[in-house]
């Protein structure tokens, strides 16, 4: 399937419609919180569906997938961080916060990839779904460690410049950034992780007859809900793209190059190491390529307040997400396909 065909998926077309609605300054507004409601549904449906399949899964492969998801989640942000520092356009704090987004994953992109594979009639394993759940959190932790190091060295510089100590703010227990333990807990008890893993367990242990009753809810209407979700996300992305000028060309280029790098690492892991089918390896590539815009921004706002939110939001939501949805997914699929034949 060529990339043109990807653009003709209803879900992707609705994403484009959302972008256009913003660009022509339409008065179209979705009710507040609709995207949140839809994303809860989408995570729940995909979790139930995947859990149902995973009940029949091979334990060793599942464990192996989890391990490689952790490797991806811990490695990608470090690659991103070093690349960002090389651009010399952002300070280490911003680089840490941005790279945390790129090591984490976007469920919206993953679901679009599922829609793409479904309509192309390509089969895929359900293991990438566990990887999706696992990969939400490690990058947040790496981002926090990188930010803590950057904070230390910046503080040292500052103290060197102003020995009177104006740079040091009185430490107070309630004002430390939540403590590392607290942030770790936040990273792993994140709402989307709870919905996804919880639904997977429910899908895996429920009686098959009970699950069958759910199929209209989790299967039949799934693509329609995804269209609605991407419709709104198109509007959100287009609004973010308006901040493009603040970000500058070099950083914008990072928003396209980084998913390509992550996608290729994902292809290698999915195809060569985990030995998945073309569909499964494509999904792993999408996991490597996608950048979070739901779970990571609030975590960074809380833990890395020094970083500029318009950098990471514009990059992940305004540039990388549209790029992956429209160009990336068919590209990664094409690469895996050419490797497989």
């Amino acid at each position, binding site marked *: 399937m060529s990339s043109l065909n990807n653009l003709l998926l209803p879900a992707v077309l609705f994403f484009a419609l959302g972008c256009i609605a913003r660009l022509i300054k339409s008065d179209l*507004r*979705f009710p*507040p*919180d*609709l*995207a*949140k409601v839809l994303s809860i549904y989408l995570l729940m449906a995909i979790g139930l569906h995947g859990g149902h399949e995973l009940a029949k899964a091979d334990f060793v492969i599942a464990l192996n997938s989890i391990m490689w998801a952790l490797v991806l989640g811990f490695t990608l942000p470090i690659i991103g961080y070093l690349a960002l520092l090389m651009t010399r356009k952002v300070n280490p704090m911003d680089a840490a916060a941005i790279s945390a987004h790129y090591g984490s994953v976007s469920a919206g992109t993953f679901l679009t990839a599922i829609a793409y594979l479904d309509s192309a009639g390509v089969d895929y394993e359900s293991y990438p779904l566990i990887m999706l759940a696992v990969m939400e959190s490690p990058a947040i932790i790496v981002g926090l460690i990188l930010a803590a190091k950057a904070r230390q060295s910046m503080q040292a510089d500052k103290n060197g410049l102003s020995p009177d100590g104006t740079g040091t*703010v*009185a430490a*107070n227990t*309630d*004002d430390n*950034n*939540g403590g590392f333990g607290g942030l770790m807990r936040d990273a792993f008890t994140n709402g989307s992780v709870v919905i996804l893993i919880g639904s997977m367990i429910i899908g895996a242990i429920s009686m098959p007859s009970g699950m069958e009753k759910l199929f209209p809810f989790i299967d039949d209407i799934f693509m329609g809900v995804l269209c609605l979700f991407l419709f*709104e996300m198109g509007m*959100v992305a287009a*609004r973010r793209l308006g*901040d493009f000028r*603040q970000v500058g060309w070099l950083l914008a280029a990072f928003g396209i190059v980084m998913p390509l790098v992550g996608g290729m690492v994902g292809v290698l892991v999915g195809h060569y190491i985990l030995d998945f089918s073309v569909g499964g390896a494509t999904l792993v590539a999408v996991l490597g390529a996608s950048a979070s*815009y*739901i779970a990571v*921004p*609030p*975590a960074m*706002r*809380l833990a890395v*307040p*020094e*970083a500029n*939110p*318009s950098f990471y*939001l514009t990059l992940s939501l305004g540039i990388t997400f549209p790029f992956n949805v429209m160009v990336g997914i068919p590209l990664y699929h094409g690469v895996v396909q050419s490797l497989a034949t």
Partner: protein
Amino acid sequence: MVTLYPEKLINIITNDALEDKLVDSFKKYGASGYTILRARGAGSSGRQADMTGFDANILVKVIMPEERMQDLLDSLERKIHKGYHLTVFITDIEVMTPGKFDKTLN
């Protein structure tokens, strides 16, 4: 004629990711209660008009007697020094039931 009593109203505009952190400070520094509203607008951090529920802004209101609010204001100032984006402004208000603002949150 109803008797009115002077109090201070602390207003904070910030991102909703900071809500829990602020509420912790309110408890720690003796606020008697708080009210949180969804907010949108624009300012030094650019436009905050996202009503999708992701990355939204909030307006937080706390009523306190002037003599008790200094500790809370200090903690807000420390947060601002750390880089958190908080817009804080304080207004004089008059209330009908001052007893409501004596009891601190658990």
